[in-house]
């Protein structure tokens, strides 16, 4: 079924009887050519591109819970390609270009909205670093603008310019960045994959890998054994525990990142704003909620919830940056499990086990990467060669010293 304004009109006039399920609930088959572990954004996108772009068939996505129950459904919905390093920027810009045509491609309105992201700077050194980054973005074919204080004031006059502990000295603006409706992205990919014949299997947890002579044969699941030609793992925060079943230790720690939304308010914040002197970033959703967040809690966690100090820290940052939000109320807090890698950048690579492929280490930047991550992982699975923009995301870069460390924090995941 194709979605369109006409279809909405027709169904409204005929009692909505014609709407079909967004996807089927298939029983798992005994074997597939490709098994994608993880029915989150990256897993669903991988299956979608495998089937649609790389024309592969016999594909299943195995999801432990419900589709989109991972970080795709619990993030702050920001999309952007404002990276510094050559290992990253072309990949995220590729992702941005995929976002730009995504909804028409998978026939689902994921509310991709290019409202812009503004990273504020507060010192000369920060501005120099942003200039370096903005230039790197332009050189990679992305867009970037450097604003001075007045430029920022013209965009967001309500920021704290006059009594700030850390004065706003300008900002790096990417106009093509913005937000997308997170669940909509998962559903769009899921529906698109389902329509292309992919079996989306919910409530199916992978409990082990069957490996013979260094080659993967299939996966044990809570719904029985499923044979597989190739298995791609895209399980974000659960990466370490899933891959431990294949005997692998990884350069990844799982951490909790909290996210926040306020009560619905009439729109006042057009784009995404990040505070460069505190842990706070914010945008406003199409429903009117201020969606905001800050830093990870800082300790390893699989609990999908965080603690009070970070909540206070984020609110302090928000109040310092935009004191006019004081009477807005926090409505809901939630937490996601972040697969924090040792250099802050992801891994899309083969593993020492033939037939087993890994997509992980997204830190808290996974949402924006969803299209490119799915595309590049599908490319790797289908062709056994890395996608051009994902060549740097190798697993052996740590041992060999080719880390991609945007923040320069070294091998301490809770600092990335």
């Amino acid at each position: 079924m194709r979605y369109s304004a006409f279809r909405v009109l027709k169904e409204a006039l005929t009692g909505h009887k014609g709407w079909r399920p967004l996807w089927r609930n298939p029983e798992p088959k005994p074997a597939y050519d490709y098994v994608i572990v993880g029915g989150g954004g990256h897993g669903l996108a991988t299956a979608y591109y495998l089937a649609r772009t790389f024309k592969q068939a016999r594909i299943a996505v195995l999801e432990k819970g419900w589709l989109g129950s991972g970080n795709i459904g619990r993030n702050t919905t920001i999309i952007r390609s404002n990276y510094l390093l050559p290992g990253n920027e072309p990949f995220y810009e590729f992702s941005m270009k995929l976002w730009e045509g995504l909804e028409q491609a998978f026939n689902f309105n994921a509310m991709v909205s290019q409202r812009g992201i503004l990273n504020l700077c507060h010192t000369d050194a920060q501005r120099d670093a942003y200039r370096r980054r903005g230039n790197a973005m332009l050189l990679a074919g992305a867009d970037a603008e450097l604003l001075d204080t007045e430029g920022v004031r013209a965009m967001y006059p309500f920021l704290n310019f006059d009594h700030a502990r850390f004065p706003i000295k300008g900002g790096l603006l990417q106009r093509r960045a913005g937000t997308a409706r997170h669940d909509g992205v998962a559903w769009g990919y899921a529906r698109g994959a389902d329509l292309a014949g992919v079996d989306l299997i919910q409530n199916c947890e992978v409990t082990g890998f069957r490996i013979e002579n260094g080659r993967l044969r299939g996966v044990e699941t809570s719904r029985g054994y499923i044979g597989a030609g190739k298995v791609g793992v895209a399980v974000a925060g659960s990466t370490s525990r899933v891959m431990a079943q294949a005997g692998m230790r990884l350069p990844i720690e799982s951490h909790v990142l909290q996210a926040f939304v306020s009560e619905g308010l009439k729109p006042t914040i057009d784009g995404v704003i990040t505070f460069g002197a505190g842990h706070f970033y914010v945008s406003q959703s199409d429903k009117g909620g201020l969606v905001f967040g800050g830093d990870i809690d800082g300790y390893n966690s699989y609990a999908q919830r965080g603690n009070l100090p970070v909540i206070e820290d984020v609110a302090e940052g928000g109040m310092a940056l935009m004191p006019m939000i004081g009477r807005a109320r926090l409505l809901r807090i939630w937490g996601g499990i972040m697969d924090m890698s040792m250099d802050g950048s992801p891994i899309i690579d083969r593993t020492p086990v033939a037939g087993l492929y890994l997509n992980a280490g997204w830190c808290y930047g996974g949402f924006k990467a969803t299209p490119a991550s799915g595309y590049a992982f599908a490319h790797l699975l289908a062709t056994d060669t890395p996608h051009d923009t994902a060549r740097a995301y190798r697993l052996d870069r740590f041992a060999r010293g080719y880390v991609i460390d945007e923040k320069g924090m070294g091998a301490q995941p809770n600092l990335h």
Partner: protein
Amino acid sequence: MLIPHPLLGLRDAQEFTCLGDAALLNRPDGLADPQALTDYVYLRDNPAGVHRELWFHEQGDRSWLVVTRNTLTHEILGAELARDVALRAKGAK
């Protein structure tokens, strides 16, 4: 979160800085095998469950602690001075 400091009793985790896996205590001799050092620096068990980890009592007595904590429930099973753990490990060698 509250950290059961072995000397000072329960203290709010906000006073601490968390570094991560207590395996960082077991630094291989830097003149030895580079592979061992690579594993030490980069690889983590990252268990969903009981995890021994290093916390620094930054706004406190400046002790490094080894805290045993369940990463699924956040339940804390114990804490001791990292110095004691490290000395014990060195003694065992």
